Protein backbone atom coordinates (compact mmCIF):
# COMPACT_ATOMS: atom_id res chain seq x y z
CA UNK A 1 0.00 0.00 0.00
CA UNK A 2 2.43 2.61 -1.20
CA UNK A 3 -0.15 5.28 -1.80
CA UNK A 4 -1.15 5.49 1.87
CA UNK A 5 0.49 8.49 3.46
CA UNK A 6 0.68 9.86 6.96
CA UNK A 7 -1.88 12.49 6.04
CA UNK A 8 -4.31 9.81 4.83
CA UNK A 9 -4.00 8.04 8.21
CA UNK A 10 -4.52 11.31 10.05
CA UNK A 11 -7.57 12.20 7.97
CA UNK A 12 -9.07 8.74 8.40
CA UNK A 13 -9.12 9.19 12.18
CA UNK A 14 -10.30 12.77 11.88
CA UNK A 15 -12.97 12.35 9.20
CA UNK A 16 -13.61 9.46 6.81
CA UNK A 17 -14.98 11.75 4.14
CA UNK A 18 -11.93 13.99 4.26
CA UNK A 19 -9.79 10.87 3.97
CA UNK A 20 -11.69 9.61 0.91
CA UNK A 21 -11.58 12.97 -0.89
CA UNK A 22 -7.93 13.52 -0.15
CA UNK A 23 -7.03 10.02 -1.26
CA UNK A 24 -8.71 10.69 -4.61
CA UNK A 25 -6.78 13.95 -4.87
CA UNK A 26 -9.74 16.19 -4.41
CA UNK A 27 -7.96 18.87 -2.42
CA UNK A 28 -9.95 22.03 -2.31
CA UNK A 29 -8.42 25.38 -1.83
CA UNK A 30 -8.66 26.36 1.78
CA UNK A 31 -10.59 29.48 2.56
CA UNK A 32 -10.26 29.61 6.29
CA UNK A 33 -6.56 30.32 6.02
CA UNK A 34 -5.90 27.79 8.78
CA UNK A 35 -4.18 25.40 6.42
CA UNK A 36 -1.98 28.24 5.19
CA UNK A 37 -1.08 29.20 8.75
CA UNK A 38 -0.27 25.58 9.51
CA UNK A 39 1.98 25.34 6.46
CA UNK A 40 3.74 28.59 7.25
CA UNK A 41 4.38 27.50 10.84
CA UNK A 42 5.66 24.19 9.57
CA UNK A 43 8.11 25.87 7.24
CA UNK A 44 9.42 28.00 10.05
CA UNK A 45 9.88 25.17 12.49
CA UNK A 46 11.34 22.46 10.44
CA UNK A 47 14.11 22.80 7.97
CA UNK A 48 15.03 19.16 7.75
CA UNK A 49 12.03 17.37 6.29
CA UNK A 50 13.05 13.89 5.17
CA UNK A 51 11.26 11.91 2.51
CA UNK A 52 11.35 8.13 2.56
CA UNK A 53 9.17 6.34 0.01
CA UNK A 54 5.97 8.29 0.30
CA UNK A 55 6.30 9.42 3.87
CA UNK A 56 7.61 12.78 4.92
CA UNK A 57 9.21 13.01 8.32
CA UNK A 58 9.37 16.43 9.91
CA UNK A 59 12.48 15.65 11.89
CA UNK A 60 14.56 12.62 12.70
CA UNK A 61 17.24 13.04 15.30
CA UNK A 62 18.83 10.62 17.74
CA UNK A 63 16.28 8.08 18.82
CA UNK A 64 13.29 10.29 17.97
CA UNK A 65 11.12 10.97 14.97
CA UNK A 66 9.28 14.23 15.54
CA UNK A 67 5.96 15.25 14.00
CA UNK A 68 5.16 18.93 14.35
CA UNK A 69 1.54 20.08 14.42
CA UNK A 70 0.06 23.53 14.56
CA UNK A 71 -2.42 22.54 17.23
CA UNK A 72 -3.64 19.61 19.24
CA UNK A 73 -7.10 19.79 17.65
CA UNK A 74 -7.09 16.06 16.98
CA UNK A 75 -4.55 14.36 19.19
CA UNK A 76 -5.45 10.84 18.20
CA UNK A 77 -5.24 11.58 14.47
CA UNK A 78 -1.75 13.05 14.94
CA UNK A 79 -0.78 10.09 17.09
CA UNK A 80 -1.68 7.54 14.44
CA UNK A 81 0.05 9.55 11.75
CA UNK A 82 3.24 9.33 13.78
CA UNK A 83 2.70 5.66 14.60
CA UNK A 84 2.43 5.03 10.88
CA UNK A 85 5.84 6.65 10.32
CA UNK A 86 7.33 4.55 13.13
CA UNK A 87 5.90 1.43 11.55
CA UNK A 88 7.24 2.36 8.11
CA UNK A 89 10.69 2.85 9.60
CA UNK A 90 10.44 -0.39 11.52
CA UNK A 91 9.73 -2.23 8.24
CA UNK A 92 13.07 -0.87 7.06
CA UNK A 93 14.77 -2.07 10.21
CA UNK A 94 14.95 1.34 11.84
CA UNK A 95 13.53 1.38 15.34
CA UNK A 96 12.69 4.84 16.63
CA UNK A 97 10.55 6.51 19.25
CA UNK A 98 8.05 9.16 18.29
CA UNK A 99 7.61 12.67 19.54
CA UNK A 100 4.56 14.79 18.84
CA UNK A 101 5.08 18.52 19.13
CA UNK A 102 2.09 20.84 19.21
CA UNK A 103 2.90 24.48 18.61
CA UNK A 104 -0.33 25.44 20.33
CA UNK A 105 -1.81 23.40 23.13
CA UNK A 106 -5.48 23.85 23.81
CA UNK A 107 -6.78 20.46 24.79
CA UNK A 108 -3.74 18.63 26.12
CA UNK A 109 -1.52 19.63 29.01
CA UNK A 110 1.89 19.69 27.38
CA UNK A 111 3.47 20.48 24.04
CA UNK A 112 5.59 17.37 23.64
CA UNK A 113 4.34 13.81 23.78
CA UNK A 114 6.27 10.60 23.51
CA UNK A 115 4.61 8.07 21.25
CA UNK A 116 5.74 4.46 21.14
CA UNK A 117 4.92 1.80 18.61
CA UNK A 118 3.98 -1.25 20.68
CA UNK A 119 2.19 -4.45 19.72
CA UNK A 120 -1.29 -3.19 20.45
CA UNK A 121 -0.89 0.14 18.63
CA UNK A 122 0.71 -1.66 15.70
CA UNK A 123 -2.29 -3.97 15.53
CA UNK A 124 -4.65 -0.99 15.67
CA UNK A 125 -2.72 0.69 12.88
CA UNK A 126 -2.93 -2.42 10.71
CA UNK A 127 -6.69 -2.51 11.20
CA UNK A 128 -6.96 1.15 10.26
CA UNK A 129 -4.95 0.60 7.08
CA UNK A 130 -7.17 -2.26 5.98
CA UNK A 131 -10.29 -0.18 6.73
CA UNK A 132 -8.86 2.67 4.62
CA UNK A 133 -8.30 0.30 1.70
CA UNK A 134 -11.97 -0.63 1.80
CA UNK A 135 -13.10 2.97 2.22
CA UNK A 136 -11.20 4.38 -0.74
CA UNK A 137 -12.26 1.57 -3.06
CA UNK A 138 -15.91 2.65 -2.73
CA UNK A 139 -17.25 4.43 -5.77
CA UNK A 140 -18.65 7.36 -3.80
CA UNK A 141 -17.37 9.31 -0.80
CA UNK A 142 -18.87 8.53 2.62
CA UNK A 143 -21.70 10.78 3.82
CA UNK A 144 -21.09 14.02 5.68
CA UNK A 145 -20.96 13.64 9.45
CA UNK A 146 -22.26 16.97 10.61
CA UNK A 147 -20.01 18.10 13.39
CA UNK A 148 -18.58 21.26 14.90
CA UNK A 149 -15.12 20.39 13.67
CA UNK A 150 -16.38 20.85 10.08
CA UNK A 151 -16.42 24.63 10.40
CA UNK A 152 -12.65 24.81 10.36
CA UNK A 153 -12.15 22.28 7.60
CA UNK A 154 -10.91 23.11 4.10
CA UNK A 155 -13.75 20.96 2.75
CA UNK A 156 -16.47 22.84 4.66
CA UNK A 157 -17.92 24.66 1.65
CA UNK A 158 -17.75 21.54 -0.49
CA UNK A 159 -19.56 19.38 2.07
CA UNK A 160 -22.17 21.87 3.20
CA UNK A 161 -23.03 23.61 -0.08
Amino acid at each position, binding site marked *: MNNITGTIINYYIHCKRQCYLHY*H*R*INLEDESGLVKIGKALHERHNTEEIEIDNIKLDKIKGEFVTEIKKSDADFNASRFQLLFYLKKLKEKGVIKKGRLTFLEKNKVDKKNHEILLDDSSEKELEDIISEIKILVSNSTPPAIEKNNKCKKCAYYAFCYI
Partner: protein
Amino acid sequence: MGTKYILSKGELHRQDNSLNFKNSNGNNYIPIEGIDEIYCLDEVSFNTKVIDFLSKNNIILHLFNHYEGYSGTFYPREKYMSGKAVIKQVEAFNEKRELIAKAIVLGIANNIHEVLYHYYRHGKEELKEFLDWLKDEMPKKLENSNDISEILLTEADIWYRFYNSFSVFLREDFVFNKRVKRPPDNPLNALISFGNTILYTKTMGQIYQTHLDQRISFLHSPQERRFSLSLDLSEVFKPVIVFKTIFDCVNNRKLSVEKHFDKNLNYCLLNESGKKIFLEALESKFNETFKHTTLLRNVSYLKAIKYDGYKLLKYILEDFEFNPFSLKEKK
Protein backbone atom coordinates in the same frame (compact mmCIF):
# COMPACT_ATOMS: atom_id res chain seq x y z
CA MET B 1 -8.75 37.49 -4.02
CA GLY B 2 -8.10 40.30 -6.45
CA THR B 3 -8.36 41.30 -10.05
CA LYS B 4 -6.17 43.85 -11.80
CA TYR B 5 -7.50 45.48 -14.94
CA ILE B 6 -5.01 47.10 -17.31
CA LEU B 7 -6.90 49.53 -19.52
CA SER B 8 -4.11 51.34 -21.33
CA LYS B 9 -1.25 50.52 -23.66
CA GLY B 10 2.06 49.73 -22.00
CA GLU B 11 4.61 47.19 -20.90
CA LEU B 12 4.38 44.68 -18.11
CA HIS B 13 7.65 43.74 -16.40
CA ARG B 14 8.74 41.53 -13.63
CA GLN B 15 10.63 43.68 -11.17
CA ASP B 16 12.28 41.63 -8.43
CA ASN B 17 9.38 39.80 -6.83
CA SER B 18 6.71 42.14 -8.04
CA LEU B 19 5.17 43.43 -11.23
CA ASN B 20 5.51 46.81 -12.82
CA PHE B 21 3.27 48.13 -15.55
CA LYS B 22 4.89 50.97 -17.45
CA ASN B 23 2.78 53.25 -19.58
CA SER B 24 2.93 56.86 -20.75
CA ASN B 25 2.13 58.01 -17.21
CA GLY B 26 5.08 56.18 -15.69
CA ASN B 27 5.46 53.19 -13.42
CA ASN B 28 2.51 51.40 -11.85
CA TYR B 29 3.56 48.78 -9.38
CA ILE B 30 1.27 45.79 -9.01
CA PRO B 31 1.83 43.89 -5.76
CA ILE B 32 1.69 40.20 -6.58
CA GLU B 33 0.18 39.14 -3.26
CA GLY B 34 -3.56 39.10 -3.33
CA ILE B 35 -3.83 39.10 -7.13
CA ASP B 36 -5.52 36.13 -8.80
CA GLU B 37 -6.16 37.51 -12.24
CA ILE B 38 -4.87 40.20 -14.56
CA TYR B 39 -6.95 41.51 -17.44
CA CYS B 40 -5.10 43.21 -20.28
CA LEU B 41 -7.72 45.22 -22.14
CA ASP B 42 -5.37 47.04 -24.46
CA GLU B 43 -2.03 46.37 -26.14
CA VAL B 44 0.36 45.20 -23.46
CA SER B 45 3.80 43.79 -24.09
CA PHE B 46 5.48 41.34 -21.79
CA ASN B 47 8.05 38.55 -21.92
CA THR B 48 8.29 34.95 -20.75
CA LYS B 49 9.85 36.13 -17.50
CA VAL B 50 6.52 37.71 -16.65
CA ILE B 51 4.61 34.60 -17.72
CA ASP B 52 6.85 32.38 -15.60
CA PHE B 53 6.41 34.67 -12.63
CA LEU B 54 2.63 34.69 -13.02
CA SER B 55 2.63 30.93 -13.31
CA LYS B 56 4.62 30.49 -10.11
CA ASN B 57 2.10 32.68 -8.32
CA ASN B 58 -0.89 30.92 -9.87
CA ILE B 59 -2.11 34.06 -11.59
CA ILE B 60 -4.32 33.88 -14.64
CA LEU B 61 -3.79 36.39 -17.46
CA HIS B 62 -6.73 37.30 -19.71
CA LEU B 63 -5.92 39.04 -22.97
CA PHE B 64 -8.21 41.30 -24.96
CA ASN B 65 -7.65 43.47 -28.01
CA HIS B 66 -8.35 47.19 -28.05
CA TYR B 67 -11.90 46.56 -29.29
CA GLU B 68 -13.14 44.49 -26.34
CA GLY B 69 -12.45 41.32 -28.28
CA TYR B 70 -11.35 38.39 -26.15
CA SER B 71 -8.08 36.94 -27.43
CA GLY B 72 -7.40 34.25 -24.88
CA THR B 73 -6.11 33.35 -21.50
CA PHE B 74 -2.79 32.33 -20.10
CA TYR B 75 -3.56 29.71 -17.57
CA PRO B 76 -0.87 28.38 -15.20
CA ARG B 77 -0.56 24.62 -15.21
CA GLU B 78 -3.32 22.87 -13.28
CA LYS B 79 -3.01 22.97 -9.53
CA TYR B 80 -5.71 20.48 -8.87
CA MET B 81 -5.86 17.25 -10.71
CA SER B 82 -7.93 14.28 -9.81
CA GLY B 83 -8.19 11.37 -12.22
CA LYS B 84 -11.28 10.21 -10.43
CA ALA B 85 -13.03 13.56 -10.90
CA VAL B 86 -12.26 13.67 -14.63
CA ILE B 87 -13.55 10.15 -15.21
CA LYS B 88 -16.73 10.93 -13.28
CA GLN B 89 -17.21 14.17 -15.20
CA VAL B 90 -17.05 12.32 -18.51
CA GLU B 91 -19.48 9.71 -17.19
CA ALA B 92 -21.84 12.49 -16.14
CA PHE B 93 -21.66 13.93 -19.64
CA ASN B 94 -22.70 10.60 -21.10
CA GLU B 95 -25.36 9.77 -18.56
CA LYS B 96 -26.72 12.96 -17.08
CA ARG B 97 -26.09 15.69 -19.62
CA GLU B 98 -29.77 16.55 -20.08
CA LEU B 99 -30.42 16.67 -16.33
CA ILE B 100 -27.58 19.11 -15.76
CA ALA B 101 -28.53 21.20 -18.79
CA LYS B 102 -32.14 21.43 -17.58
CA ALA B 103 -31.02 22.49 -14.12
CA ILE B 104 -28.96 25.29 -15.67
CA VAL B 105 -31.82 26.49 -17.89
CA LEU B 106 -34.20 26.47 -14.94
CA GLY B 107 -31.58 28.41 -12.98
CA ILE B 108 -31.40 31.06 -15.71
CA ALA B 109 -35.19 31.40 -15.70
CA ASN B 110 -35.38 31.68 -11.91
CA ASN B 111 -32.73 34.35 -11.75
CA ILE B 112 -34.24 36.35 -14.61
CA HIS B 113 -37.57 36.13 -12.80
CA GLU B 114 -36.01 37.47 -9.63
CA VAL B 115 -34.29 40.35 -11.43
CA LEU B 116 -37.41 41.39 -13.37
CA TYR B 117 -39.75 40.94 -10.43
CA HIS B 118 -38.11 44.02 -8.94
CA TYR B 119 -39.36 46.12 -11.88
CA TYR B 120 -42.78 44.48 -11.81
CA ARG B 121 -43.11 45.33 -8.12
CA HIS B 122 -42.26 48.91 -8.96
CA GLY B 123 -45.13 49.31 -11.37
CA LYS B 124 -43.97 47.69 -14.62
CA GLU B 125 -47.12 45.60 -15.02
CA GLU B 126 -46.31 44.78 -18.64
CA LEU B 127 -43.77 42.27 -17.34
CA LYS B 128 -46.44 40.04 -15.80
CA GLU B 129 -46.97 37.90 -18.88
CA PHE B 130 -43.28 37.08 -19.19
CA LEU B 131 -42.92 36.47 -15.45
CA ASP B 132 -45.87 34.05 -15.48
CA TRP B 133 -44.42 32.26 -18.48
CA LEU B 134 -41.10 31.87 -16.68
CA LYS B 135 -42.78 30.38 -13.62
CA ASP B 136 -45.40 28.12 -15.22
CA GLU B 137 -45.19 27.37 -18.89
CA MET B 138 -41.45 27.35 -19.38
CA PRO B 139 -40.67 24.76 -16.66
CA LYS B 140 -43.33 22.44 -18.10
CA LYS B 141 -41.89 22.81 -21.56
CA LEU B 142 -38.43 22.10 -20.17
CA GLU B 143 -39.68 19.07 -18.28
CA ASN B 144 -40.97 17.58 -21.52
CA SER B 145 -37.81 18.26 -23.49
CA ASN B 146 -36.12 15.02 -24.35
CA ASP B 147 -32.88 16.03 -25.91
CA ILE B 148 -30.31 18.73 -25.69
CA SER B 149 -31.46 20.56 -28.83
CA GLU B 150 -34.95 21.06 -27.36
CA ILE B 151 -33.42 22.27 -24.09
CA LEU B 152 -31.26 24.73 -26.02
CA LEU B 153 -34.31 26.01 -27.92
CA THR B 154 -36.07 26.73 -24.64
CA GLU B 155 -32.98 28.49 -23.37
CA ALA B 156 -32.82 30.65 -26.49
CA ASP B 157 -36.52 31.45 -26.04
CA ILE B 158 -35.91 32.66 -22.47
CA TRP B 159 -33.14 35.04 -23.55
CA TYR B 160 -35.13 36.28 -26.55
CA ARG B 161 -38.11 37.17 -24.35
CA PHE B 162 -35.80 38.66 -21.75
CA TYR B 163 -34.19 41.01 -24.30
CA ASN B 164 -37.63 41.97 -25.58
CA SER B 165 -38.69 42.98 -22.09
CA PHE B 166 -35.96 45.63 -21.83
CA SER B 167 -38.06 48.34 -23.47
CA VAL B 168 -40.41 48.18 -20.47
CA PHE B 169 -37.91 49.38 -17.90
CA LEU B 170 -34.69 50.59 -19.56
CA ARG B 171 -33.94 54.19 -20.45
CA GLU B 172 -34.96 54.90 -24.02
CA ASP B 173 -31.62 55.82 -25.52
CA PHE B 174 -30.31 52.37 -24.59
CA VAL B 175 -33.20 50.20 -25.74
CA PHE B 176 -32.33 48.05 -28.68
CA ASN B 177 -34.31 46.03 -31.12
CA LYS B 178 -32.41 42.85 -31.35
CA ARG B 179 -29.41 41.17 -29.83
CA VAL B 180 -26.43 41.31 -32.17
CA LYS B 181 -23.13 39.71 -31.28
CA ARG B 182 -19.73 39.89 -32.98
CA PRO B 183 -19.49 42.80 -33.42
CA PRO B 184 -22.20 44.43 -31.35
CA ASP B 185 -24.07 47.13 -33.27
CA ASN B 186 -25.30 49.38 -30.46
CA PRO B 187 -24.30 50.45 -26.92
CA LEU B 188 -26.49 47.94 -25.10
CA ASN B 189 -25.23 45.01 -27.15
CA ALA B 190 -21.71 46.21 -26.48
CA LEU B 191 -22.34 46.17 -22.72
CA ILE B 192 -23.91 42.72 -22.85
CA SER B 193 -21.12 41.21 -24.93
CA PHE B 194 -18.37 42.77 -22.87
CA GLY B 195 -20.05 41.93 -19.56
CA ASN B 196 -20.65 38.34 -20.59
CA THR B 197 -17.02 37.95 -21.65
CA ILE B 198 -15.78 39.27 -18.33
CA LEU B 199 -18.13 36.90 -16.52
CA TYR B 200 -16.98 34.00 -18.70
CA THR B 201 -13.33 34.66 -17.93
CA LYS B 202 -14.05 35.18 -14.21
CA THR B 203 -15.82 31.84 -14.18
CA MET B 204 -12.76 30.22 -15.73
CA GLY B 205 -10.74 31.57 -12.82
CA GLN B 206 -13.16 30.02 -10.34
CA ILE B 207 -13.30 26.65 -12.09
CA TYR B 208 -9.51 26.69 -12.03
CA GLN B 209 -9.80 26.42 -8.23
CA THR B 210 -11.86 23.24 -8.44
CA HIS B 211 -11.20 19.81 -9.92
CA LEU B 212 -13.58 20.23 -12.79
CA ASP B 213 -12.24 19.86 -16.30
CA GLN B 214 -12.88 23.13 -18.14
CA ARG B 215 -13.51 21.39 -21.44
CA ILE B 216 -16.30 19.01 -20.50
CA SER B 217 -19.55 20.94 -20.51
CA PHE B 218 -23.19 19.96 -20.36
CA LEU B 219 -25.49 22.67 -21.68
CA HIS B 220 -23.00 23.89 -24.25
CA SER B 221 -21.43 21.39 -26.52
CA PRO B 222 -17.92 20.40 -25.44
CA GLN B 223 -16.92 20.57 -29.10
CA GLU B 224 -16.87 24.34 -28.98
CA ARG B 225 -13.24 25.36 -29.11
CA ARG B 226 -13.43 27.03 -25.76
CA PHE B 227 -13.44 26.22 -22.09
CA SER B 228 -17.10 25.49 -22.47
CA LEU B 229 -17.76 24.54 -18.85
CA SER B 230 -17.24 28.23 -18.07
CA LEU B 231 -20.02 29.05 -20.49
CA ASP B 232 -22.26 26.58 -18.64
CA LEU B 233 -21.55 27.75 -15.13
CA SER B 234 -21.61 31.45 -15.99
CA GLU B 235 -25.08 31.21 -17.54
CA VAL B 236 -27.17 31.54 -14.35
CA PHE B 237 -24.98 34.41 -13.16
CA LYS B 238 -25.60 36.54 -16.25
CA PRO B 239 -28.87 38.01 -14.93
CA VAL B 240 -27.45 38.29 -11.42
CA ILE B 241 -24.14 39.93 -12.24
CA VAL B 242 -24.01 41.22 -15.81
CA PHE B 243 -27.58 42.38 -16.37
CA LYS B 244 -28.18 43.82 -12.92
CA THR B 245 -24.99 45.85 -13.35
CA ILE B 246 -26.01 47.03 -16.83
CA PHE B 247 -29.51 48.04 -15.69
CA ASP B 248 -28.01 49.93 -12.78
CA CYS B 249 -25.42 51.72 -14.94
CA VAL B 250 -28.00 52.64 -17.57
CA ASN B 251 -30.97 53.61 -15.42
CA ASN B 252 -28.93 55.48 -12.85
CA ARG B 253 -27.16 57.38 -15.63
CA LYS B 254 -23.70 56.14 -14.70
CA LEU B 255 -23.14 55.45 -18.39
CA SER B 256 -24.31 57.64 -21.22
CA VAL B 257 -24.23 56.96 -24.95
CA GLU B 258 -22.52 60.27 -25.77
CA LYS B 259 -19.91 60.27 -23.05
CA HIS B 260 -18.91 56.65 -22.64
CA PHE B 261 -19.06 55.11 -26.06
CA ASP B 262 -16.74 55.58 -28.99
CA LYS B 263 -18.35 57.89 -31.51
CA ASN B 264 -15.93 56.84 -34.27
CA LEU B 265 -17.34 53.36 -34.08
CA ASN B 266 -20.95 54.54 -34.16
CA TYR B 267 -21.25 54.23 -30.39
CA CYS B 268 -20.92 50.46 -30.62
CA LEU B 269 -18.08 50.07 -28.17
CA LEU B 270 -17.19 51.52 -24.81
CA ASN B 271 -14.42 54.10 -24.72
CA GLU B 272 -11.72 54.00 -22.07
CA SER B 273 -13.64 55.92 -19.42
CA GLY B 274 -16.78 53.89 -20.20
CA LYS B 275 -14.82 50.67 -19.77
CA LYS B 276 -13.48 51.92 -16.48
CA ILE B 277 -16.92 52.78 -15.09
CA PHE B 278 -18.49 49.54 -16.29
CA LEU B 279 -15.64 47.36 -15.02
CA GLU B 280 -15.71 49.04 -11.64
CA ALA B 281 -19.45 48.44 -11.39
CA LEU B 282 -19.03 44.79 -12.43
CA GLU B 283 -16.16 44.31 -10.04
CA SER B 284 -18.14 45.64 -7.10
CA LYS B 285 -20.98 43.29 -8.06
CA PHE B 286 -18.59 40.31 -8.07
CA ASN B 287 -17.38 41.35 -4.63
CA GLU B 288 -20.78 42.10 -3.14
CA THR B 289 -21.59 39.64 -0.39
CA PHE B 290 -24.76 38.04 0.90
CA LYS B 291 -25.54 35.58 3.66
CA HIS B 292 -25.52 32.14 2.11
CA THR B 293 -28.52 30.17 3.33
CA THR B 294 -26.88 26.77 3.65
CA LEU B 295 -23.28 27.73 4.44
CA LEU B 296 -24.46 30.42 6.89
CA ARG B 297 -21.51 32.54 5.94
CA ASN B 298 -21.09 35.73 3.99
CA VAL B 299 -20.29 34.81 0.43
CA SER B 300 -19.47 37.02 -2.55
CA TYR B 301 -21.11 36.48 -5.93
CA LEU B 302 -17.68 35.53 -7.27
CA LYS B 303 -17.37 32.80 -4.63
CA ALA B 304 -20.90 31.70 -5.45
CA ILE B 305 -19.62 30.85 -8.94
CA LYS B 306 -16.95 28.61 -7.45
CA TYR B 307 -19.53 27.03 -5.17
CA ASP B 308 -21.62 26.17 -8.22
CA GLY B 309 -18.50 24.35 -9.36
CA TYR B 310 -18.49 22.48 -6.03
CA LYS B 311 -22.17 21.63 -6.47
CA LEU B 312 -21.47 20.21 -9.90
CA LEU B 313 -18.49 18.27 -8.56
CA LYS B 314 -20.67 16.88 -5.78
CA TYR B 315 -23.31 15.93 -8.28
CA ILE B 316 -20.88 14.06 -10.50
CA LEU B 317 -19.01 12.43 -7.61
CA GLU B 318 -21.85 11.47 -5.33
CA ASP B 319 -25.12 12.32 -7.00
CA PHE B 320 -26.14 15.25 -4.81
CA GLU B 321 -28.93 17.18 -6.46
CA PHE B 322 -27.50 19.93 -8.71
CA ASN B 323 -29.30 23.24 -8.32
CA PRO B 324 -27.33 26.19 -9.62
CA PHE B 325 -27.19 29.47 -7.73
CA SER B 326 -30.55 31.03 -7.01
CA LEU B 327 -30.67 34.77 -6.43
CA LYS B 328 -33.96 34.44 -4.59
CA GLU B 329 -32.91 31.68 -2.23
CA LYS B 330 -29.38 33.03 -1.84
CA LYS B 331 -27.81 29.62 -2.17
